[in-house]
């Protein structure tokens, strides 16, 4: 896999993906255990007493909480318009909560004509050079935004050739053998790469019904969208 041409300087590492949700555990005696206490110090999820839980919720950070948590070095961000999620629990329902953290290395193309980024799927492609002998046909991506693609141009008169083979033996027919060499105008070929990080929050419970363990889990994305898994 070739992620050879980055758009950022080498050695620049992404920081952690910031949390957009924090949790609060509610006990049957009215006591709450928040992920971050009043001093913005973090409580551990594994320290929650599951036997006493009656409710568990995920909430967006308030600006004040986010500011305090960032001061102790945690990466969080306040997006107060995000919806909150709560589940009611009892002794039969056991809490499920975790975050899936994704670190991906992603390839993409950039069209040098319209300056827009696109994903090359291998379907929208242009034959830029026909194969000869052991060499196969060469295809380049077509920009899905503006339709641009690599082409050839006469170095002297700038006449455009959609494929190398449109000009006999790679020479511009107007400018002849001495001056009519073609050059490749690169607009869409060549991929770039970058690291991406994102988080999905999973909240739910498991319950034993007639000896069979059932799970109900909601996947909550960073934008607040929620899906039943």
């Amino acid at each position, binding site marked *: *896999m*070739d992620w050879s041409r*980055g758009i950022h300087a*080498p050695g*620049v590492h992404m920081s952690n*993906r910031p949390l957009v949700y924090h949790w609060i555990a509610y006990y049957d005696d009215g006591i709450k255990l928040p992920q971050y206490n009043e001093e913005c110090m973090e409580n551990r999820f594994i320290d929650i007493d599951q036997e006493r839980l009656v409710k568990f919720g995920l909430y967006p950070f308030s600006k004040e909480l986010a500011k305090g948590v960032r001061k102790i*070095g945690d990466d969080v961000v306040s997006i107060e318009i995000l919806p909150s999620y709560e589940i009611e629990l009892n002794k039969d329902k056991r809490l499920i*909560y975790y975050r899936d953290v994704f670190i991906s290395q992603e390839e993409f193309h950039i069209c040098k004509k319209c300056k827009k980024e696109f994903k090359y799927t291998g379907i929208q492609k242009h034959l830029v050079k026909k194969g000869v002998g052991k060499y196969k046909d060469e295809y380049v991506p077509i920009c899905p935004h503006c339709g641009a693609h690599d082409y050839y141009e006469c170095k002297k008169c700038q006449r455009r050739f959609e494929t190398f083979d449109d000009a006999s033996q790679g020479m511009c027919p107007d400018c002849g053998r001495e001056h009519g060499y073609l050059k490749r105008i690169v607009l869409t070929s060549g991929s770039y790469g970058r690291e991406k990080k994102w988080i999905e929050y999973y909240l739910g419970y498991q319950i034993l019904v007639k000896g069979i363990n059932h799970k109900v889990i909601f996947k909550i994305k960073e934008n607040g969208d929620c899906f039943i898994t």
Partner: protein
Amino acid sequence: MAATVQIEQVTGAAGSRTYTVKDTGTRLRYYTADESGAALTTNPIPIPTVNDGLSGSYWATTCVNVTAGPTSYIKNLRWYVTMASANMGLDWDLGTNGDMVIGISSPTVASGRTYTQGFSSNQYDQSDGTVGSWGYFISGPTGHTFYSVSCSNALSGGATSTGEFNSLANAYMVQSGQVMGSGATGRSYFIVTQIVVGSGAVQGDKPDKTATYVYSEV
């Protein structure tokens, strides 16, 4: 606090390894050399001229490094790569029997999605072959010691198509169960991947792909 995690490539002899961070600035690239450089044009993978011949890249060893530990734990480290076709060989026109493969220790693909398939640091095996020409196949007689020798029941001799692990739902299980406990730092189990090029492969610009490590954390 949330763990800080980075992807690393491992190269060099077992006793003098180099760990190279793989991110936006220094991405993974396959060579016919034990090389972690991001943008080198030396030692590409040649297209075999013999019918039914295969050329392998040197296998690439990667892992994740937890540099700041999780509040509670990190569990179930997985890996997958996106593709449009059944395998990378079709997506990238890698020729007859060309593909992107990954070391597997289990006898079935299904168990490869459930049980640990990576290997611990002390089972690291430096990639080898003939520089500039071909790398040893993971599953071959001179292949990766862990997959081709230690795992006697491994599927296809220890390597299978990454096409089997092309989404989160059917991701490859690098390390199941707890990877790091509360506050713990260090490296996960390692995985090896390799590009195999067959005769009839096509050179040129290839469709974009995304390879992803994912782990569960609280």
